[in-house]
């Protein structure tokens, strides 16, 4: 029996998404073609855009399909920096962002931008006051994740926007919504740009979207045939897009039921891990699908191997950062041994309750190794 508890890394493809992708492979026309096959593909593209927009709560024309979260984030940050360079040369973000953000900001720093990264609190949250203190009148761009991929912390988007209104009203506010989409309500009215990924909600890898608010246009990252209104050239990846739409439809339709279920599993997991003597690195009011915990002793990778041999799949830190110390937990100033031992357990609405029991049981066994 296998229990997949690494849904923040990627999720299983939902049956509806698989079916939609297969449909788009049968109906293989290019949405840019004038003939009937092209028209049918164009219709599918249009419907898919509607579906993702509806799940997010915006109008369809605000959605640009991309190759995934990283591309969306790159497009938003590079574009916003270019667009707003007359406002100032300062960018505010946080120390707990995903590498897609941090490394894009590093590239901007090399171009002469001044970057301020707000540190998290020791519980993993980001305080609105700390963000407010980092803002300056010449801040041109603020980028923040909705949900931290390592701890599940929910970041203060609305408070940040409010603080921006007072200090740097012309700054563009980008939100990395990759882990937040379909997991928590996203306050779209306070956001200028928002990045999404399909494979975190049951879609396919290599697929994502960028939301831009009404009236905001950004220069594209990829030039070519002017697909996606010129925002993102390249023939549309129809199977991925159709799957993304199907997954978004499914997830948004059952949002309340799914989050309630994951919250219950999360509470059970936290209580069980505490009973085993683990420290919980996830803040109290986090996203429903991520729990980060540290056994008292040992190293993440050993736990991961032992659990993996029992068919239980979790990660340490984030899956992208294999073998590196977590920059998020380090920024939270956790003791070194907690950083070394940290495990991230991430759920999906289909996670069976017995997976939690199996994990706790496996963890207890593995802890005996140390």
């Amino acid at each position, binding site marked *: 029996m296998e229990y997949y508890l690494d849904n923040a890394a990627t999720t299983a493809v939902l049956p509806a998404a698989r079916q939609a992708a297969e449909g788009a492979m049968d109906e293989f026309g290019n949405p840019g073609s004038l003939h009937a096959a092209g028209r049918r593909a164009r219709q599918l593209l249009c419907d898919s855009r509607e579906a993702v927009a509806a799940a997010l709560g915006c109008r369809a024309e605000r959605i640009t399909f991309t190759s995934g979260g990283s591309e969306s984030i790159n497009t938003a940050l590079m574009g916003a920096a270019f667009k707003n360079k007359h406002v100032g040369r300062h960018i505010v973000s946080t120390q707990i962002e995903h590498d897609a953000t941090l490394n894009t900001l590093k590239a901007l720093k090399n171009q002469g931008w001044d970057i301020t990264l707000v540190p998290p609190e020791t519980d993993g949250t980001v305080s609105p006051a700390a963000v407010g203190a980092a803002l300056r009148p010449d801040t041109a761009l603020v980028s923040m994740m909705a949900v931290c991929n390592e701890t599940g912390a929910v970041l203060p988007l609305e408070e940040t926007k409010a603080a921006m209104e007072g200090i740097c009203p012309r700054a563009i506010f980008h939100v990395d919504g990759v882990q937040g989409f379909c997991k928590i309500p996203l306050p779209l009215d306070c956001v200028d740009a928002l990045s999404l990924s399909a494979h975190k909600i049951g879609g396919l890898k290599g697929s994502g979207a960028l939301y831009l608010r009404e009236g905001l246009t950004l220069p594209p990252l990829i030039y070519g045939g002017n697909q996606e209104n010129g925002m993102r050239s390249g023939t549309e990846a129809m199977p991925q897009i159709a799957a993304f739409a199907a997954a978004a439809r499914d997830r948004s339709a059952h949002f309340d039921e799914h989050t309630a279920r994951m919250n219950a599993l999360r509470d059970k997991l936290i209580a069980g891990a505490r009973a085993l003597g683990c420290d919980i690195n996830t803040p109290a009011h986090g996203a429903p699908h991520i729990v980060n915990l540290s056994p008292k002793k040992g190293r993440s*990778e*050993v736990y991961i191997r032992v659990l993996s041999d029992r068919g239980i799949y979790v990660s340490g830190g984030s899956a992208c950062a294999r*073998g590196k110390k977590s920059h998020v937990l380090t920024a939270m100033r956790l003791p070194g041994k907690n950083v070394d031992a940290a495990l991230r357990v991430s759920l999906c609405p289909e996670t069976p309750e017995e997976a939690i029991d199996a994990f706790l049981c496996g963890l207890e066994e593995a802890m005996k190794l140390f």
Partner: protein
Amino acid sequence: MKEILLCKCGELVLKGLNRHKFEDRLQKTLYWRLKKIGNFRIHGCQSTVYVEPQDGEADMDAALEACRKIFGIVAVARAVVCEKNIEDIKAKAAEYLREPLSRVRTYKVETRRSDKRFPMTSPEISREVGGYLSDVYEHLQAQMDEPQLTVKVEVREEYAYVSAGVLPGAGGLPTGTSGRGMLLLSGGIDSPVAGWMMAKRGMELECVHFFSYPFTSLEAKQKVMDLAEILTHWAGRTTVTVVPFTHIQTEIRDKCREDYFTLIMRRMMMRLAQRVAEKRDCQCLITGESLAQVASQTVQALGVTGAVCDMPVLRPAIGMDKEEIVTIARRIGTMDVSILPYEDCCTVFTPKHPQTKPARDKAEDEESKLDVDALIDEAMQGLEVVTIG
């Protein structure tokens, strides 16, 4: 034009009556390494081994690279074969060296004439060929001191050879002429270098690796296999004997004093390595230890760890700085693999304050808390031998 590789033998030519054994071994090694690359005739004469392609399909670039990794060869020249008359030598030299000569301005010609029946002396040949090249390539200027290119002409028994100089080879002695050593291969930078250094002196290599799953990963084990594979390019076919080491490590951690963890672990490794070495017919152990690099490599610690074996323990990197070791690791191609970030067994339970001046009797006291023989026997039951190359 027919090309050939001239492999110059190193110190093996200084050997006495058993010299032919070294030569045979070198030719066998050449045969096996070049077999994969193409159809070559390999024959020796004086202090040179000739590698002659037998058809047009042989990849001479790959053959040259392979020859430069064979121990016992100090230099390799890629040359064109000429008839033994000065006209043919001149014409072939001009044609064969067109490309390298077009890239330089200054050059000289050096000649060696081992066949003294050839009607011209070496200086005469050099002058004649040099004059001809200057006529054909007007941009060239002869220069005796530090020219950009030295054209080599060799007049030998059957043919004459012209090349654009020689490339350094691996040096050392032919693999298999100095016995067999069991290399303790960890996955770090030092142990592959140590193995390479002993292979350079003609030693055949076998490897032993201590595997501490789940404390170390399958990736770490694969990394060791990859390192062994790189060593085979130099030292030929090898084996990696994987010894299950987890139980021993947890026993040490549970029962022994923390500051002696690493030391006792290494004593267990040496015991096991010797057992494996005996089994695989090796005459010595090889380690990558470098004096005082880490706590377990102080002279006191080496004494305490080495005390458990009666086989010679060769530590070729003992007097080398890390930078010197890294330079060799880069040259032999193991560095990029060695620095992959997988933990090896040596770092699993590292004490905070390891003992740098251990005493043998204290180590023995600590070890008496373990059932050493039973642990060794248990590990020997679970050996996995992987052949590489």
